[in-house]
Every structure is written in C-alpha cells, then in structure tokens.
C-alpha cells in the first residue's frame, strides 16, 4: 500500500488534471491562430493588399453572447464615481492606453466624477476650428476615415470591407428620403446619369426634363451624386458629434440593434456590422440636397445622446427588435423645416454602455 500511494503521489505530482491541460492547450492553439492571422494581415498590408472580408469562428461566437446586457453592465461600471484623489491617475491611465489628448479637455481631471464623464468630455474653446468654406462638408467627429466614395447604381451599396458591401437603404432605413431624390419625373425624355449598368438601368440618378426650353437650363444645372464617408472613432477619441454643414434635420430614426464591437477586426469578420448594430440616423437637407448621419454604437460605446432630442433613450433593456418595425421614427416639427443646425454645431454624443 505504501509503495502504491508513493507512486500515486508521484503520478499526481506530474499529471495535471486533464481539463486544465486541455484548456491550456486550446488557449495556446487559439493564441497561435490569432498570431498567425495577424501576421498574415500585416504581410497583406505590407504588400499594399487590402484586408478582405473573412468571417471567423469568433464572429459567430459573438452572436451567442448577450452583448447588449454586457454593454449596459460596462456602462454602469463606467458610471461609478472615482474618488477625487484617484481621478488624475485613472484618467491619465486611460489616456495612455487609448492615446487621448488630455491637453484639450475643457475641465481639470479632478472635475470628471467618473470615467463616463471623462469619456464624454467636451474640449477647450477653439480646439476644433470649423472650415469656413461655404462649399465644403466637414467631419462631424474625430476619427479615422475607413471608407469613402460615391454611391452608384440602383443597389447603392457601401463597401464594409473589400469583399463585402451593405445597402445604404438598410443603414438609413428603407423609407429614407434618399429614394425621393431619384426621380423628378415630369415628362419628356430622360437624360440619365452615367450609371455603370448603362443608361437603360432603372437608377436613382434619373434627371428628367419637362420640355426643350428647360433642357438648356438643366444642361447647366449640376448633375448630382450621392457620396458617403465612414469614420471610425477609437475609444480614446473625442466622442461628441457635430454638424457637417448648415442643414435642416427633418427626421430621426432609432434602430435598437445588436452591439457588436466595431474595431478593425470586427469590420473584417462580421457581416452587416453597421446594419445590425444599434444606431441613430438623422436625415435632412443641406444646400446641395440630401444629407444623413448614422451614429452606430458598439459593445463598449452602446448609446447615443441627441442634443436636439434629449429624451431619446438608446441601448435600453426594454427595446425589442421587431423585424416588421426595425426602427422608430420621429419627424421634427415643423414638418418640412425640421431643426435648423449650423456647420460645426454640436448635435449628439456617444456614451459608454
């Protein structure tokens, strides 16, 4: 008996319980695969090749998680009051981790009671000069330009990443007045925009002239296109949203969707990321025609506050996503004029959770 217990002890000493060994092995394999993927991505970038869409296991796994609850839990953590003496160290730590610029914060660090307050901080007066050119559209946020271009053809798809695109009508809402700009159909012949599918394709850019006398005027009037620009905000960026031009906001749509992360890896692996995530769309008119802004949330930054509609609540537990009614809409009074905002004016902001 003595010998057997000795040998048993010797075995126990060296034999890690099976489960721990398997877990360590699996973690090792996953980490190695992650390193291999990142390495492959870096090589593609070095060759100037654009990353392509490739759904992976992690993206499918994310679909199983209660991301909205996780987001709200994260938000409640961020609301916890930080003792005054700890605030500078905590916020400097955040700034170092996420490359925030502390010099621009409007208030001294001690004045931000929580990380949420620090995250939604405003900037010192004059920190963001607004381009005065009346013919330009300015960036509504601080961030990185992910994609930009012109929408063409009847499908009007925005490229999420090379190899995957999503319809702008799904992003903005199918009843978007973007459709209304497709035809000022009066009568007479149609001069079509240069749609790639040829002049017969039913396209949004049909410009019709009523009669020959108008034709000359129309010939001189600008042909129009619809353009888009996708901007990604890093966690350390200034997270308030400003107006890109002088415009009238006619309506607001709130899509209570999922809350996948929206980092570079998520953009490359999650299908319809911006169409599935919680978002608020503001739609209206500027001097050149239609304009819309979609503020899309993410797991850590799940909610959007509107200065023009403070009572709107996003990322709330009660809101249920119904396929028949994917969003709720509000038309701003007076109808047809809506809310007038100036270029550079603050209109919204992202919040954590």
């Amino acid at each position, binding site marked *: 008996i003595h010998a057997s217990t000795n040998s048993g002890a010797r075995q126990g000493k060296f034999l890690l319980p099976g489960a721990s060994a398997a877990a360590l092995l699996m973690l090792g394999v996953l980490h190695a695969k992650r390193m291999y993927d990142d390495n492959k991505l870096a090589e593609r970038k070095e060759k100037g090749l654009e990353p392509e869409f490739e759904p992976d296991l992690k993206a499918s796994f994310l679909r199983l998680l209660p991301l909205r609850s996780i987001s709200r839990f994260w938000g409640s953590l961020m609301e916890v009051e930080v003792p005054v003496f700890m605030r500078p160290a905590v916020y400097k730590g955040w700034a170092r981790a996420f490359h925030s610029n502390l010099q621009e914060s409007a208030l001294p660090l001690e004045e931000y009671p929580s990380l949420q307050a620090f995250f939604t901080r405003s900037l010192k007066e004059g920190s963001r000069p607004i381009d005065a050119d009346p013919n330009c559209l*300015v960036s509504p946020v601080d961030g990185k*330009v992910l994609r930009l271009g012109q929408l063409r053809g009847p499908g009007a798809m925005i490229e999420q990443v090379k190899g995957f695109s999503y319809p702008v009508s799904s992003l903005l809402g199918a009843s978007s007045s973007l459709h209304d700009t497709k035809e000022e159909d009066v009568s007479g012949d149609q001069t079509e925009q240069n749609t790639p599918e040829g002049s017969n394709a039913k396209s949004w850019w049909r410009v019709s002239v009523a009669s020959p006398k108008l034709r000359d005027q129309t010939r001189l009037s600008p042909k129009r296109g619809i353009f888009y620009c996708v901007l990604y905000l890093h966690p350390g960026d200034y997270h308030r949203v400003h107006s890109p031009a002088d415009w009238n906001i006619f309506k607001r749509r709130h899509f209570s969707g999922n809350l996948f992360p929206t980092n570079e890896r998520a953009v490359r692996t999650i299908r319809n990321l911006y169409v599935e995530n919680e978002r608020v769309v503001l739609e209206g008119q500027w001097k050149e025609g239609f304009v819309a802004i979609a503020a899309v949330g993410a797991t850590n930054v799940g909610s959007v506050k509107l200065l023009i509609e403070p009572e709107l609540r996003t990322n709330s537990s009660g809101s249920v996503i119904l396929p028949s009614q994917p969003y709720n809409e509000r038309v701003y009074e007076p109808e047809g004029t809506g809310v007038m905002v100036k270029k550079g004016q603050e209109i919204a902001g992202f919040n954590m959770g």
Partner: protein
Amino acid sequence: STVVVVFEAPLSKAKEDGTVSSEFDFCVRAGDRIRVGEAIGR
C-alpha cells in the same frame, strides 16, 4: 463607434462656354485621421 455620413453633392456642371467643371471632390482618403470641423470634401 462609427459615424457614416451620406450626402448629395453636385457631380459636374457644364459652364456657359461648354467646358465642364468637376464639382464635389473628397479632400481626405481612406486611412487618414480627421478631426471635427476639418473638410471631408469640397
């Protein structure tokens, strides 16, 4: 988080002398960092 701006702008305008002026053009590219108030395009 992400912000998508979708907007209408003139594509091209034929002038009286028959030449065509190219209208709206982006002044940033994918990958650029941008800040509030800086021009996206003119």
